[in-house]
């Protein structure tokens, strides 16, 4: 395990060099992130299908328990139980529109992970950086438990547990636990835990910051120790069940899956679950007594338990829906936590937008009316008054708006349209509108993915490292 230790030391040094200007010492974080003894216990796996490119390169890396799809390169990195999904990368010949520019894509885009340490992290979507369109880089970056790197090239960054960076290029930044950042491009920023920031320069700026004292119950992270709180308890509760899924060669889910739907072989599905047409259930998603209406989806690390989703519901990466009833066309953003109770179901009305990283923990019966925007921490009726607003009303904001801990500047209409456009795109990409032959998406393409596994060295100096491998058709 000598080489693995050497690699870890190198990653610590790289992180400290990059984050020195914001006085961040990554040493205790990285040393205690995952014991090296865990690194040789799990195989890595990758998908092959006719619908996705196959161009994988692994060099001097540990890939324990991680999944790869599409065009990816991993070098001098530790990628632990992460999902690197290259099924939305740009293809040669595509045209990328940015402001007044239309930029041709000259070669297939690839995800490039170098000198980085990712733990239980999702990497997905494509680079939105107009300066780096064919290269979705993750370099000198540390990403901790259940973070999402979504369409966000990162260089020299630290992502706390359950943090999400979305459609943003980041350089030398610290993103606190459970923070969500979608801001185009940022550098040398330290974002406090529980910060929700969505900015489109010149159009709108949405900012919400959790009260740390209320957030700690859900996620608490102290440098040098493992994250704790309800989020971790829920996320890790099915660890053994998932391990069974990974250990077995043949998996048959205990539910009927229509021809137009897809339930990933690495998803965990329990009885009482119903899968309708055009449903997409991604790897590491967990469904138990879940009714998935037509076109609904559950992305990576989503848990849907004792709940009913009426149809065309987006449950973005990492969202949890427990004991809840969701109307049609409800969008639940990244890592949101919707927690009803068995005797008092949480109800989310049709067409609602639940902002990324929203916590709705129904201590009393709660219902969000149809067509509302919801954000932040909602635990009772008083929070519904300060943390929700009819979408139509929000769209009428022309200059600025503030309510409770939310601060918004710019055009409400631009904000709402941006979200609605994105939700539509997600549903299309996931194949929610498929009629059997047209509008195919992930739900249809993912049905025929085959999986191969990769193993690390099991002893000697190279123990824990995976051999250098290039995989192409």
């Amino acid at each position, binding site marked *: 395990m000598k080489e693995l230790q050497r690699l870890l030391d190198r990653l610590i040094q790289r992180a400290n060099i990059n984050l020195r200007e914001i006085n961040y010492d990554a040493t205790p974080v990285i040393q205690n992130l995952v014991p090296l003894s865990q690194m040789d216990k799990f195989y890595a796996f990758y998908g092959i299908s006719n619908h996705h490119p196959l161009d994988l390169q692994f060099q001097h890396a540990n890939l324990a328990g991680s999944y790869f799809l599409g065009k990816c390169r991993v070098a001098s990195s530790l990628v632990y139980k992460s999902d690197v999904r290259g099924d939305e990368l740009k293809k040669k010949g595509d045209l990328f529109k940015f402001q007044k520019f239309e930029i041709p894509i000259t070669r297939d885009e690839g995800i490039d992970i170098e000198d980085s340490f990712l733990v239980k992290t999702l990497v997905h979507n494509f680079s939105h950086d107009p300066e780096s369109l064919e290269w979705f880089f993750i370099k000198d970056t540390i990403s901790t438990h259940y973070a999402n790197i979504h369409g966000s090239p990162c260089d020299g960054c630290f992502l706390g547990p359950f943090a999400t960076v979305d459609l943003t290029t980041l350089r030398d930044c610290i993103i606190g636990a459970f923070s969500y950042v979608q801001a185009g491009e940022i550098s040398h*920023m330290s974002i406090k835990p529980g910060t929700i*920031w969505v*900015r489109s320069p010149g159009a709108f*700026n949405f*900012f919400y910051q959790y*009260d740390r004292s209320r957030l700690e119950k859900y996620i608490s992270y102290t440098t040098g120790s493992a994250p704790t709180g309800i989020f971790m308890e829920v996320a890790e509760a099915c660890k053994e069940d998932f391990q069974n899924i990974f250990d077995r060669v043949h998996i048959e889910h205990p539910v009927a899956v229509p021809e137009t739907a897809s339930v990933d072989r690495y998803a965990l599905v329990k009885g009482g679950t119903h899968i309708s047409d055009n449903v997409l259930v991604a790897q590491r998603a967990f469904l138990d007594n879940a009714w998935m209406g037509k076109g609904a989806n559950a992305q990576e690390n989503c848990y849907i338990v004792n709940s009913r989703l009426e149809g065309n519901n987006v449950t973005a990466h990492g969202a949890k829906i427990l004991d809840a009833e969701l109307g049609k066309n409800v969008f639940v953003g990244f890592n949101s936590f919707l927690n009803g109770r068995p005797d008092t179901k949480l109800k989310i009305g049709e067409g609602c937008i639940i902002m990324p990283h929203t916590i709705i923990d129904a201590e009393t019966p709660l219902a969000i009316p149809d067509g509302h925007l919801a954000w932040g921490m909602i635990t009772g009726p008083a929070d519904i008054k300060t943390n929700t607003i009819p979408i139509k009303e929000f769209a009428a904001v022309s200059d*600025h708006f*503030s309510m409770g801990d939310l*601060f918004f500047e710019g055009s409400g209409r631009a904000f709402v349209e941006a979200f609605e456009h994105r939700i539509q795109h997600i549903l299309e990409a996931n194949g929610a509108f498929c009629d059997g032959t047209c509008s195919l998406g992930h739900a249809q393409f993912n049905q025929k993915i085959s999986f191969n596994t990769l193993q690390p060295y099991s002893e000697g100096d190279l123990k824990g490292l995976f051999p250098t491998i290039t995989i192409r058709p």
Partner: protein
Amino acid sequence: MNYIVKDLMVPISEYATVPVGATLFEAVLALEEAQLNFDRSKYQHRAILVMDDNNHVVGKLSQLNVLHALGADVDNREIKTIRQLDRFGFTPQFISAMEARRRFAGRSLKDICASPAAMKVERFMKATTPGEYVDENTTLESVIPQFVYGAHLSLLVTGNDEIVGILRLSDVFAAVFHAMEECHHEAAGAPSTDKPSGETG
């Protein structure tokens, strides 16, 4: 006329000072008193120096610092959030509107001023930084960039390792204005006054 810093500075003995531990109200009184005793300039003093037990300057309290203190009794998490919004790309207009609404709405000026008056100056003063010092024999031309690039309203003047005075932006500007006047009069062939305007009031 060529000036050096000590030609233009206000001696420390004429400047408003308070000890560490003084209240904001005591600081404002000290400023008023210093102004009454200091009549050589039409420009008002705009800051109070905060001194430690050894009579060393440890901070400055400017008029802006005093305004910043108003409403500090509601300096809660909400206000702290608002004050960081500039880092996140919000406009100054938005931030000031939010702060006015959350901090001052529905309160009289008297009410807003009441609590901060009893608070300690250390909470609001700005600690001195290395770029705020200048030697008393420095020429005016040399010190101008220090004002421009440091965006200072005043500098602490040193002599023999002691603070001997304060060089105010207003006095530097008066000297510059005087030099401009001289140039203009010479070009027009007219006689000029011989003192910077800061010394004539």
